[in-house]
């Protein structure tokens, strides 16, 4: 272990002194700063979209389809219009001429079917919850009451909720063109040969259940107009992309539309969307000339926030008798739901390149078919495509280990990329720049007490203890820092992946940073301040970070895909470099020296070898006064930078999970959980720790708790939190976390991104542990979420293989 740790990697845990002590060596980056935005956020001295009150504001309530699939045959809003407080009632027909189609920015194939997606259904509904009409009233209660008075007749059409059934010849059609949206394939190497020559082949089918993103803040929209210009406040992750898309969709010229994401309470991808409600609120405000507000209720949100995952994965692996992996084959069905939303079809593609994980192999073959069903559309959800891929490869590697009778860690060792082999181009064609899987794994094994737990497991098996112990391994990597624009272009995505920053030094030496990223819980105000404090030598407290308003932050690609620090943070560094260059010109001029003789340390410009110096604050004031500047120098201490990365970044790590499974009740309890992540250099360990904790919780939630369930008619049965189970702190274990740090070589900060790591890593670790506990009983898989009932049925089926009574759909 020491040897591997010596290879340029240090294991680190947060120390008290990181939080409380003075900046070590004067550096801010690396300090566990408490987040400067938190005082505002946790005391409620903040503005959420729903807090916005405007004079004359009206409130919108949407009537939603109770049918998964039906023709709208009659709409009568006349009674609703006469209800108290009602100002207007609209149905799809009223917007038909102007509402356009909600955009899909990722047409993944030439022949992809992108159906028309009216924000408000006009003649046909295709999922329960689709907006069919709305009431605009003087308060939200009157608006809600009047919904009951709208009459709509439906002619029911057949629903189809199952992807496999949807592809059958005789299936009801979601759209005229059929239920197949696209097929996308990717292949490298000779897969036939890899499988033909292999000693062992293992195939499994995994179900990625449908998940409902549950951000703490529900979605909310406020739209207003002063005549020809419009402002839209929205609880969104993507104010910049939203502005462009809304301009294209509604015809409101881009320069007449301002989009603001005020403080936003979480998103996890669910607010990476151009929603029907955003478009409709703009149209309503345009009609009525009055400001309008809509805030969803939790149950409305469960129905209509875009859903996540919902894939059926058939994966096979071929290996030699000694465990060397030869090839991996993946055949994927991805449930699109009823329409293609912003990046719906792209989600499985984000996983397509990650099915080889951290392993070397000769060949890879991937096919994905996007399928329409009469359900809420799916789209990005924390990890988007990569959790699915990581789950499948990490699960099947454990299955392969069982098949070979080999320890799952040993099997991984035989196959993973050695730390001496970086940069390494994988079978999927990605070049992993750096990593050290040996170091992270050794550290995790030590913290976990792997050998001791294996001994306990053997003992419980021996004793036939009704409570069995299972150990799950996940040595994940992910693809972060979305994304090199050229790569996005080659995958037919509709935009680039750069990020923008502006840095301006104010006359008194304080600094404003305008970022194109759009934080909604990630702590950019703190991390960006730390970066700027180091780059310009100003105090952490002297930096303000502005974001989320297209009128002040004119350019950006927003926040998702663990991209903000890796792309947006680098733009901040580059803008600071430019500012520093300018300041140096002024400093040299004022000190009557050549810029070449001026050096900059910790906020001070000094003429080399003399005692003469100027602080950056002095330079700021001198630049503001502009009395004595170099000839031709533009009197400004500000700069913009747009950074477009050359490559993705590849955080990795080793997560180990021990579970106790009660074989009598089927209940699973997580006994211990160790996460050693390598996210490259760390700007703020406290923020990293927070992201890892939240991420693991969300991944465990998929493994054990959450599932969106529909009945055969397409009704969502999990509309409330009594039915859609989110775990709380009481249901989750304490995590042991640690890090190894292998800096990224592809950006000047050496950072890799951490927003999705925990979620991606933890789901397979937990399910591997559950299956490991049950393996002596003949159980080879438990579908997610591994509920007590599912575990019990899996045990029952394994004991009596011919029984057909078990197995949840």
């Amino acid at each position, binding site marked *: 272990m020491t040897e591997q740790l010596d290879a340029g990697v240090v294991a680190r845990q947060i120390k008290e002194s990181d939080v409380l002590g003075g900046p070590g060596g004067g550096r801010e980056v690396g300090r566990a700063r408490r987040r400067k935005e938190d005082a505002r956020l946790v005391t409620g001295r903040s503005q959420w979209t729903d807090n916005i009150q405007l004079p004359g504001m009206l409130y919108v309530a949407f009537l939603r389809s109770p049918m998964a699939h039906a023709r709208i045959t009659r709409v009568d809003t006349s009674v609703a219009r006469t209800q108290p407080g009602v100002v207007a009632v609209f149905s799809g027909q009223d917007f038909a001429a102007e509402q356009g189609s909600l955009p899909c920015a990722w047409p993944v194939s030439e022949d992809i079917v992108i159906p028309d997606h009216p924000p408000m259904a006009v003649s046909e509904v295709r999922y329960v919850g689709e907006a069919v009409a709305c009431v605009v009233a003087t308060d939200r*209660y009157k608006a809600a009451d009047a919904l009951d008075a709208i009459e709509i007749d439906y002619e029911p059409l057949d629903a189809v909720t199952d992807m496999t059934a949807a592809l059958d010849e005789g299936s009801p059609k979601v759209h005229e063109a059929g239920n197949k949206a696209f097929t996308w394939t990717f292949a490298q190497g000779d897969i036939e040969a890899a499988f033909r020559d292999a000693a062992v082949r293992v195939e499994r089918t995994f179900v990625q259940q449908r998940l409902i993103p549950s951000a703490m803040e529900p979605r909310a929209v406020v739209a207003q107009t002063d005549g020809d210009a419009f402002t839209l406040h929205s609880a969104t992750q993507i104010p910049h992309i939203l502005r462009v898309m809304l301009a294209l969709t509604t015809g409101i010229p881009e320069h007449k539309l301002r989009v603001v994401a005020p403080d936003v309470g979480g998103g996890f991808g669910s607010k990476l969307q151009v929603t029907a409600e955003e478009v409709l609120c703009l149209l309503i405000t345009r009609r009525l000339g009055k400001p309008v507000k809509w805030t969803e*209720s939790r149950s*409305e949100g469960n129905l209509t926030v875009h859903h996540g995952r919902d894939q059926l994965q058939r994966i096979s692996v071929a290996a030699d008798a000694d465990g060397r992996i030869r090839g991996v084959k993946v055949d994927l069905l991805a449930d699109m739901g009823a329409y293609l939303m912003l990046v719906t079809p792209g989600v499985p593609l984000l996983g397509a390149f990650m099915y080889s994980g951290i392993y070397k192999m000769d060949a890879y073959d991937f096919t994905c078919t996007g399928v329409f069903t009469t359900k809420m559309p799916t789209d990005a959800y924390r990890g988007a495509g990569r959790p699915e891929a990581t789950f499948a490869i990490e699960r099947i590697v454990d299955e392969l280990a069982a098949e070979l009778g080999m320890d799952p860690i040993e099997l991984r060792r035989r196959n993973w990329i050695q730390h001496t082999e970086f940069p390494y181009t994988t079978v999927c064609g990605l070049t992993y720049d750096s990593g050290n899987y040996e170091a992270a794994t050794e550290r995790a094994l030590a913290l976990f007490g792997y050998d001791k737990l294996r001994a306990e497991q053997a003992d419980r098996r021996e004793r036939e203890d009704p409570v069995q112990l299972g150990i799950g391994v996940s040595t994940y990597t992910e693809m972060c820092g979305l994304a090199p624009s050229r790569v996005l272009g080659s995958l037919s995505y509709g935009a680039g992946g750069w990020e923008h920053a502006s840095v301006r030094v104010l006359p008194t030496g304080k600094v404003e940073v305008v970022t194109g990223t759009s934080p909604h819980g990630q702590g950019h105000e703190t991390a960006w301040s730390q970066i700027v404090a180091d780059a310009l030598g100003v105090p952490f407290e002297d930096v303000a970070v502005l974001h989320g308003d297209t009128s002040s932050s004119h350019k950006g690609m927003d926040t998702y895909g663990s991209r903000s620090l890796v792309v947006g943070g680098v733009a901040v560094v580059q803008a600071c470099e430019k500012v520093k260059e300018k300041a140096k010109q002024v400093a040299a001029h004022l000190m009557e020296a050549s810029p070449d003789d001026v050096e900059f340390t910790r906020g001070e410009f000094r003429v080399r070898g003399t005692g003469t110096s100027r602080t950056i604050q002095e330079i700021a004031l001198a630049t503001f006064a502009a009395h004595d500047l170099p000839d031709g120098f533009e009197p400004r201490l500000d700069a913009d930078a747009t950074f477009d990365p050359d490559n993705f970044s590849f955080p990795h790590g080793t997560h180990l999970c021990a579970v106790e499974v009660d074989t009598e009740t089927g209940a699973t309890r997580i006994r211990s959980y160790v996460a050693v992540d390598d996210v490259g250099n760390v700007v703020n360990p406290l923020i990293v720790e927070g992201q890892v904790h939240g991420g693991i919780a969300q991944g465990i939630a998929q493994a054990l*708790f959450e599932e969106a369930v529909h009945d055969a008619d397409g009704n969502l*049965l*999990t509309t409330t939190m009594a039915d859609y*189970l989110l775990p*709380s702190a009481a249901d989750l274990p304490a995590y042991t976390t640690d890090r190894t740090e292998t800096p990224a070589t592809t950006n000047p900060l050496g950072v890799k991104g951490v927003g999705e790591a925990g979620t991606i890593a933890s789901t397979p670790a937990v399910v591997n542990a559950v299956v490991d506990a049950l393996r002596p009983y003949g159980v080879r898989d438990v579908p997610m979420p591994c509920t007590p*009932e599912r575990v*019990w049925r899996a045990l029952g089926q394994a004991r009596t293989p011919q029984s057909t009574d078990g197995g949840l759909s």
Partner: protein
Amino acid sequence: MIPASFDYVRASSLDEALETLSEHGEEAKVLAGGQSLLPLLRLRLAYPGTLVDLGRVEELRGVADRGDHVLIGAMTTHYEVATSPVVREHCPLVALATATVADPAVRHRGTFGGSLAHADPAGDLPAVARALDMEFVARSPEGERVIPAADFFLDYLETALDPGEILTGIRVPKLGPGWGFHYEKFHRTAQAWAIVGVAAAVRRSGGAVEEARVALTNMGPVPVRATGVEQAVRGADLGANGALRAAAERADEDADPPSDLHARPDYRRHLARVLTHRALVAAAGAA
């Protein structure tokens, strides 16, 4: 979701509450802690015209030692019940079960009487009421009557209370010395309702079970008294391997378990047997 509009009356005495109820007839509903009623209103599953809030009716609140029984006022919160020294000393099963209800926030608002009047078969207290043979004291303008637990729960969310009647208190008989208690709750998250729950009281003498009371949560539209188990376990030798388990096999005899997202009936039946065994072991051990 947003509830439909309703009138709201805050009663300051039991008489005023009863009067308001009779004025408004079937249109009116009593509001206690609101932890079950308000969700129903918000989901627009109930449309009462008037809510009569009992929150300020002090006479309905508190715990009193009445010699052979403990009287718990209907408006006593779960938190107050679970932490009451009187309840803990004389009816520990009530304290144990109440402490498993939902989460601290709900326990500070939800009430003992509200839980029982709501009669949700997934609620933890109805089974305890059946196991302990509690008595329900109800008042109407006509006067007071006492309803035994066996007659109180009629169907899913339905009790023997008349629309104009208010549950004022619940008498919990003291079982006396020699009893051990356990409430075994099986749920998927800490805050969730029981998939199955088992309330057990066991009186042992020496190494054998003298007498037991067992009732089940969420194994039918009303709480189920597992009389088969009670009979089978009588005299069971605690030293004998499997005696309690054999008795527990009869747990689901009289059950009619529901099917929902968290469990189908065959699994609930299985759970009832396993959990009854565990509850018996724990209750007998604690005696």
